Each structure stands twice: as C-alpha cells, then as structure tokens.
C-alpha cells in the first residue's frame, strides 16, 4: 500500500511518449553546465524555447532568448511543458520554486550536490503543486531520436522498445550501449538521480513504462544502499505486467558501505539498525521474490531481456 501512496505523492506524470513533443525551458542556460549541454539537447531535436539565467536577461544563448525570470520567459514565449535545470547547487531550490510558481509542472534537475534539506522543501512544494520532479544529480530523460532532457550521450541510444530506469548516470548509458549493441533499442531511459532525496521514484517510472505503449520490457538499474530497489521489487510483483530485468551495481562492496552517493542510507542506518535493508542480499532477495531476473554484469542484460520477452510471447 505504501508504494501506491508513494506513486501518488509527487505529481501525476504524463505518459512517457508525451515528453516527446515538449516545449522546454532551460534554467541556468548561461552557467557552465547549461552552456555545455544546451547545444547537445538542441542538436538532438529538443525544442528549447527559452532560457533563464538571472542578470542575463535580454541576451541569447545558442540562439535561444534568455530571461531573468521564468514567469517573464513564459509571458514572452508562451507556456512550456518541462524545465531542465542546470543551475548551481545552492540556487536549485529557488530556481525550482520559481518554475513551480510560474506553473511549470515537470522539472528535470541535473546538477549534483543539492543539499538534501533543500530537496525536502522542494519536494514538499512539488507535492502540493502536483509537480513531477526528476533528479537531482541526474542525467534526465532521453527518448531516442525524439527528445533529450538532460545529459545522456546520444551515441549510446537507439529507438526501440526497452525502457531503462536507473539511479546512475554513466552506468545508465553503459546499459543502453549494451542493449544498442545487441540490437535492442530503447523506448525511453531515465536516471532518477543518485542522491538520498530524489523526486520521481522507481515506482513512478515503472508505472509510466507499464502504461507506455512503446515499451515492451523494462531494465531497472540499481545500486547498493537505500531501499529503492526493495520497494521497487515489491511494486513490480504487485503492479507490473511487463517483463522486468534488474542489475545492481556495488554488489561486491562491503556491507553497510557505499560508493558515491552520500547520505543515501541514513534512514536505514538509523531507523532500521540491524535489519538487512540496503544490503546486496536484501536487494537480490527482493528481486528473487518478485521473480525479476538479475544480471550479474551489464553485458548479460541484453540476453536476459531477450529471454524475458520470448517467455512472454
């Protein structure tokens, strides 16, 4: 039941393919990350209609008009569907609140290093405005050959019917690359972000991909630490009909330790001292219970996906 609540908690996202035609606003377009990835997104065909960077209003970046304020941008260019945020970590909260106040209901937060208490306030506001938030510390969303909302390197992806949901950045692309090399294209890939406190959850994306007509199979890329994989496994058993294949990185790392994403296991460390949640064993057992095959290395994923698809037909 808690899974259901969670899915409802944070805005009802559009069906996956509806991202494809989005009118996009980029916040932090004049900052280093924005300057780097905006041309990449543009070349991929993403329709970026405006940029926002305070004090840069009136200028242009990559041919896109830049404004000082989100509401001013919307006034000038019309409504937008999604904002992609590349702003500096300590201004992310303000930028996201500004976007929500201006009526934008889908946000992709790319930047790494957002203080978790800023995310708490950001997500409280997202819940009350029913805004769908992806990230932070996230490569965002890619729908191959349609739209790039974030930093996914395009060469790893090709159109197809496998959806990828991941907590990682480059590892998401690695998995996509393995699929692409094996001839399995992707319907959509999303990195939900590696931090302790993130917006959209595995469950929300499982639900989106379950409903998405383009998607025939789902690859879930997890990591040790936290309990997202356990919760996702229970949700898959309850609510997902399409075949799911999992991969978990960090399975040889020592118990209770974690590489990379700081703070992700605070709650299990404290509130559930002594329980096994967050460990490799716990995650593998959860997937086993949910009858989700787990690849022991990225290169095994394509084979498991093909087997799962065959079994289903």
């Amino acid at each position, binding site marked *: 039941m808690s899974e259901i609540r*969670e899915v409802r908690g944070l805005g009802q996202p559009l069906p996956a393919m509806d991202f494809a035609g989005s009118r996009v606003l980029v916040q932090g377009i004049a900052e*280093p*990350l924005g300057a*780097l*990835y905006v041309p*990449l997104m543009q070349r991929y065909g993403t329709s970026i209609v405006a940029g926002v960077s305070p004090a840069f209003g009136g200028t242009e970046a990559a041919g896109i008009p830049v404004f000082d304020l989100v509401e001013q941008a919307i006034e000038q260019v019309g409504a937008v569907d999604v904002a992609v945020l590349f702003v500096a*970590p*300590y201004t992310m909260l303000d930028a996201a609140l500004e976007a929500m106040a201006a009526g934008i209901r889908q946000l992709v937060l790319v930047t*790494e*290093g*957002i*203080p*978790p*208490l800023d995310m*708490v306030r950001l997500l*409280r506001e997202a819940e009350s405005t029913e805004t769908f938030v992806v990230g932070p*510390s*996230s*490569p965002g969303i890619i729908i191959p050959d349609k739209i790039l909302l974030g*930093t996914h*390197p395009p060469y*790893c992806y090709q159109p197809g019917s496998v959806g990828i949901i991941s*907590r*990682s*950045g*480059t*590892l998401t*692309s*690695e998995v996509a*690359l393995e699929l692409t090399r094996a001839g399995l294209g992707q319907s959509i890939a999303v990195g939900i972000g*590696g931090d*302790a*406190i*993130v917006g959209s959850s595995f469950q929300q994306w499982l639900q989106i991909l379950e409903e998405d007509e383009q998607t025939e199979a789902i690859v879930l890329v997890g990591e*040790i630490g936290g*309990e*997202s994989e356990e919760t996702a496994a229970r949700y898959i058993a309850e609510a997902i009909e399409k075949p799911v294949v999992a991969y978990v*990185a*960090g*399975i*040889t*790392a*020592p118990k209770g*330790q*974690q*590489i*990379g*994403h*700081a*703070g*992700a296991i*605070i*709650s299990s460390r*404290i*509130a559930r*001292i*002594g329980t096994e949640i967050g460990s490799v064993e716990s995650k593998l057992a959860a997937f086993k219970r949910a009858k989700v095959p787990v690849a022991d*290395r*990225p*290169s095994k994923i394509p084979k498991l996906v093909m087997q799962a698809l065959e079994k289903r037909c």
Partner: protein
Amino acid sequence: MDLLEYQAKELFRQQGIPVLPSQRIDRPTELKGLTIPFPVVLKSQVYTSARGKMGGIRFVENTIDAIAAAQAIFHLPIMGKYPKVLLAEAKYNAEREFYIAVALDSATRRPVLLGSQFGGVEVEAKLSKISQVVVTQEFSPYYARRLALKMGLEGKLLSAVTDIVEKMYRLFTERDLDLVEINPLAVSSNQELMALDGKIVVNDAAIGRQPELASLVATIPDQAVPHALTCSINLVEREGNIGVLCNGAGLTMATLDLLQKSKGKAANFVDLGGDYRHCCPPSVLQDRLKQAFDLITQEKSVKVVLVNILGGVASCLQVAEAIAGFLKWQSGQQVPFVVRLAGDQFHSARGLLAAMDVPVFESIDEAVLEAVKRSAAPATQSVSPPHGASQPAQTGNSPLILASA
C-alpha cells in the same frame, strides 16, 4: 561526514541542549590543568559507538590516575584507529537513559524524529521500541510533542523532551545535517535531562554554505574535509594491485564488481564523477585525468592501471590524449595501462594509444580480464592479445574502505 563527540557537544551547547562541563585533551599532561572537578570521565574521541566495551571510556578520581588512564586510551586502538583527542567530562548520575535522533528518511523524503525510553546500550536490543514521527510539513514544535507522547512520556518529562527535540531539529536544519543523535539522553532522579553522548553527521554537499561547520571540521586532526563540492580528485585506497579510474559512481561500482568477479584486486580507485557537477564540467576533464593518474600511480603496489571512461561531451580521443600525455611524462617508471573507452572518435583514440602499446577495448569485460591478467604477471611493456584468460593469485574479500564521491 561525522563529527567527533566533543564537536557535536559544542554544537549542542550553542543550541541550548544541556551538556556536561567538559574539556578537550590533546595530550595526557593537559590533565594537570583540568578545570572540571573530579570524578571525571575520559573518553576516546573516535568515530565508533562501540568504544565503551573496548576500554575507550574510563572514570578517574584524581590527576595521577587521569594521566595514566589518558595514556592508556591514547594507545588503545578502537576498530583499528587511535584517538587523536580525548574528552574529559564531569560524571553524571543517570537514573534512566533515552534515545533521541533527527535523521533524513529517503523513503518519505522528509526528516524523521526518532525516540525511545530505552536508550544507551539498550537501544540496539530494543529497536522495536523506537518511535518515529515524520516531519511531513514545515516543522512546528507539535511534531516534537507528538514524538514525546509516542515515546510514552507525560508531564514535565514530556515538556523537557519536546524542548530538546525542538532544539535538535533547529540544529539539524540550520546546520544542514544528515543526522543528530543523542544517546544516551540521561534522565536524572529529578527528571532533568542531559545529553551524555552525541553524534552529528554533517551533509557533505551543504558544507560550502556552513562556514562555521567547515572551520569546526578543520580542527580535527587527520579529518578529510568533504570534497563533494570541490573538483579535487578523491583517491580511495584498497589492498590489491590494480589502479582503477572510472567516471560516475555507478560505473565505478560496476567496474569494481567485475574486477572482483574476475579475481582481480583493486589497489585504489578514483571516481572522476558524473557529468553534472556544477564546478567541474567535462571541459576540464583532461586536467582531472592527469591528476588522477598521478595519484593512482603514486601507490607502489599498482601493477596496472585500468581506465574505464564512458564519454559524454568529451570524446574518446580527448581521453586518449590525456593518457598518452601522462605516459610520456611518466616515461621513467612506466606502469602499464589497460583502457576501455566508449564515445566519439573511438578509433582515433585506439590508434593513438596502440602506438604506445596501450590496449583499448570497447567492452568492459574484456578490459577487466586484460587488466587482471597483467596484474598477475610480472610487469611488462608488451601487449597481450585481448582475449587471454587470467589467472590471478588470490581471491577473498579484502576489507574495502569506500568513500563517497
């Protein structure tokens, strides 16, 4: 990043949470100048909660005993670590011991208040007794009252615990903490409360806007200052003979997993980070690669360096050029490199490095096998064919110490 007990108590004191008079002791002889009256408790300042059972806490009645006890504690390793500092603190007569904490809960994406009447050493045995209150909206003291009530308190004790939880919560938010814990929170016979031990975990990402915390942390000997917000390279040491460099935490974990599955052992590793650090976009990749190679190869046990870079905005050729540049600069001591690249200009990159006898693979699995194979053989400059089987010397779980990046 964890604070030591005496630092946590300094923050408690500033926030008005009751703590005992205490004094930081850097050398046993400082106990001659103790301003706290005896009896006194001497506590080893280490990052583990099990120090009591291991002899890291001692009660002393006079200066001579205190100096002897301090010398013993300074020379007593706790979980392999020697304390740099002790805390001398007044003794307190607790009638009961509570457990109180404020933490972040990633499932509800909210702070959570935790409390139990069974604190101290009992807490692990009575986990089911810990009450939780999720702070769903902006904090207000009634959340703290709700916890105190759930803990089964009433009257004066309910008010007193509410007050302390409220102060802990303000500390938690004002200082951007991941955790504030008081265990035990002692209850005296007249129902007054005292924080006897405290634990604070600072959020690494937020330290850049917490200048006071940053300077507090700087006073800890040997404490690594959080690097999450800087672009400094973070090397994690392990006990094998393969140096590893990857980009992104997930990819790094996956690579280390594959290494271990193939019976290879990492000597150390560097995660260069993903593509969305505000301070170090891929445009500075080459400098960072050079620094990382420097760090990795400084460790004498490194017999081979495994590089696994999935290029984004940066091309394979840029990575290859950085490797080539490093190998030329490093010409004297020549640790062999095994490289896996993905991205634009793969073939040019492979060509450039092949000329320097560095094998470049498209597949991680193959690169890992090659690296393991080379790590098992005596150091050599010659390139083996990519598909050789490896025969590493040892397996087993080495005690890994992994840091966040």
